[in-house]
């Protein structure tokens, strides 16, 4: 199939940037979306132009590197996948495809489709962990964890940190990302001690990084390649409120 691509090009964080139009010819439907961009880049390179910068690594939907808006949708038209798992059989001959970077103040564009998502790392630094020293752990089976709790913890922990939730949110909020990590750690007994402090400091950091606030649209859940549920946001909200309203800082949740 032959396609027309409108791709956001921007040389650096301070450049204004704009769309450029390219043709992608003889695209096979079994190509992945990123294979198709590789193809365009090979042609650009041979034509002496700079290829389109885009982030990618594992190309199997788990590293969370790739992320772009494809026709206005984070990771493109298919549900529950990342851009690297999108295959060209989702498109038709003659289609026009608009490709843009994830847009958020907290995700400044570095170049073309590459954005800086270190704000996510700083949200984790604020408390997205269990404070345990290496070597100080008890036997792994000393504390049984009910399977439903372990399963819920896993569902939340499946987040790949790609930023699609922020990109899709009309408020550019990262509450789904923040809530998923807080929820993961709140479902396991090891995470209880720091639970409310964690919720408070992660939510605070979230605001400080310049993300918007959640207005319960649910666009994040729709865009999430791992199907993480907005219910975790309610859980985070509760822990934040509880933490703020309880007198002492270090109290555990329910």
């Amino acid at each position, binding site marked *: 199939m032959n396609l027309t691509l409108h791709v956001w090009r921007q040389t650096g964080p301070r450049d204004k940037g704009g769309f450029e139009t390219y043709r992608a010819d003889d695209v096979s439907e079994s190509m992945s979306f990123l294979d198709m961009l590789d193809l365009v880049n090979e042609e650009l390179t041979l034509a002496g132009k*700079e290829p389109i910068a885009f982030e990618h690594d594992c190309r199997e939907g788990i*590293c969370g590197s790739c992320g772009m808006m494809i026709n206005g949708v984070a990771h493109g038209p298919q549900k529950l996948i990342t851009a690297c798992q999108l295959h060209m059989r989702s498109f038709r001959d003659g289609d026009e495809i608009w490709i843009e970077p994830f847009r958020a103040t907290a995700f400044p564009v570095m170049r073309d489709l590459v954005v800086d998502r270190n704000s996510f790392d700083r949200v984790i*630094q604020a408390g997205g962990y*269990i404070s345990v020293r*290496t070597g100080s752990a008890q036997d792994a089976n000393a504390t049984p964890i009910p399977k439903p709790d*372990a399963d819920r913890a896993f569902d939340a922990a499946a987040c790949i940190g790609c930023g699609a939730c922020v990109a899709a949110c009309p408020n550019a909020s990262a509450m789904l990302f923040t809530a998923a990590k807080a929820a993961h750690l709140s479902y396991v007994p090891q995470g209880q001690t720091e639970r409310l402090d964690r919720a408070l400091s992660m939510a605070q950091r979230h605001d400080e990084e310049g993300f918007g606030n959640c207005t319960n649209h649910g666009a994040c859940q729709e865009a999430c390649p791992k199907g993480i549920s907005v219910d975790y946001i309610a859980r985070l909200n509760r822990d934040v409120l509880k933490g703020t309203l309880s007198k002492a800082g270090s109290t555990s949740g329910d």
Partner: protein
Amino acid sequence: MELNARIPDHPIDQMWDRHRFDMKLVNPANKRKYEVIVVGTGLAGGAAAATMGELGYRVKCFTFHDSPRRAHSIAAQGGINAAKNYQGDGDSVYRLFYDTVKGGDFRSREANVYRLAELSLNIIDQAVAQGVPFAREYGGLLGNRSFGGAQVSRTFYARGQTGQQLLLGAYQALERQIHEGTVQMHVRCEMLDVIVIDGRARGIVTRDLVSGKIEAHMADAVVLGTGGYSNAFFLSTNAKGCNVTATWRAHRRGAGFANPCFTQIHPTCIPQSGDYQSKLTLMSESLRNDGRIWVPKRAGDDRAAGQIPDAERDYYLERLYPSFGNLTPRDIASRRAKEMVDQGHGVGPMKNGVYLDFRDAIQRLGKAVVSERYGNLFQMYEKITGEDPYEVPMRIYPAPHYTMGGLWVDYELMTTVPGLFAIGEANFSDHGANRLGASALMQGLADGYFIIPLTIGNFLAEHSRGDVDENHAAARDTVREVTQAQERLLAVKGSRTVDSFHQELGRLLWDHCGMSRNESGLREALAKIPELRERFWRDVTVPGSGDTLNQSLEKAGRVADFLEFAEVMCWDALTRDESCGAHYREEHTTEEGEAQRDDERFAHGAIWEFKGVGEEPVRHREPLHFEHVPLSQRSYK
């Protein structure tokens, strides 16, 4: 090149414990005076940086990714082994040790492997304490499965995303230390060389991938956790960014490279669908627990899978290996698949795969059970191929996956360059000629959490802290050399893309130094690689400049190193004139068609010394002694 493995003189089951007592300690107050560089933030690097930060060292940690959470450890699906014996099925540290040495086809160091098996226990405890959501039984205790040819259930797993969950555990520990200020994190910063001063590693040279700035970072010790080199083959299951640059640069600076020809091919990957393809996708080996592998008996059979009756199907693994069947080790399963395809039994549009069929499992267990076990993998397969594995059998084919070879290290994980350490897949230590399933995560974490944080103290306690800084002549020289190499790449302005060279190299290696090798093929490769390298430096085109984010330039540097590295890989395969584990020389086969080891001549690790680009490297040996696991021919019949 001096190769002293420094194996402590203690009985193997007390060796690590007593060696920990023997090692010198750094006074807690002094630890913060020492700077340690960690390159790479996968399981090994991330765990090492976090733990050394906890201990009080000043850690500078580097990754070329945008975040320390992206390293390819994240893609490991199946699980992590540990000799917990929670299933009470007869597992023990000794059994895990034994299985690993035997599975590695007797080309690993017993002392290191025993320690790995011991530490496997601590890893699971540590991960659970961090909140890693391992699979659990209804009673709330940890679940296990048997994996990749093991006869006990010792594999811990978190659905099909064990690597992800373990990496996020290490990443969170690392972020905690970054928050505490003990670790200084440098993201989007690629290591391009090691600075060696007076024979000791004292720092690294990096390129800031955003600003393009090339600069030196000094430290009292350098730890490389930079992964493996399967991407030498271009098409592999590794992430696109995986590369040999860090370990190759260390090698050029004097670190011996051990067993580079030990490259593992994973049997269950999705076959290539066209020339444009950029990487191969691995499907978890756990699929072999319930899927049956077959090809049509008649070569060139074009019928759809469902139209081929059972009598005309060849379930070749079940036929050849009645006791292990579809669960034979990776190297054997891979080679048999290649043979089937080479003999014309291949299936799929490009005739480049074999079937992995769940028809019988669905009949026996019901679709619901199969879906619970493998649902996400089936979905992934369908997304990529457009075929529904509940209806038609999957097609699989082997692909380069993991590299057992790597920088030679001693018992303390130090390379032949004092002060330079290698951990995880970047070193060669524990897997011999073949890695067992679910052992990579175990090794990366054992190295990172439990070994390097202690052994580095032993080194630092014995060595003076540095009074060297970025202005040292050696540091400035190294920065200049890196800068010049980059300028050379940009100046070629030829007519071919970096990827086209990488693809050409990959095909050459796959054909001659891939799943099976022979002398004439290897000699041909050794003749062609220098010629390809010469064409690369004459005709490659790298658009853009060095002072911006330039992904073509990043790739070009990595491919340039692969083009040098490929030669030593072929030298190693050529000179190891035996078959063992994943290294299969067609000249050395048993009557049954299995790898024929030659313990008389090759019960050693081969360690290569760099002599210059295009010069024949020098081969050294570390003899291997098998006192606990008697040398025997593997048999999976």
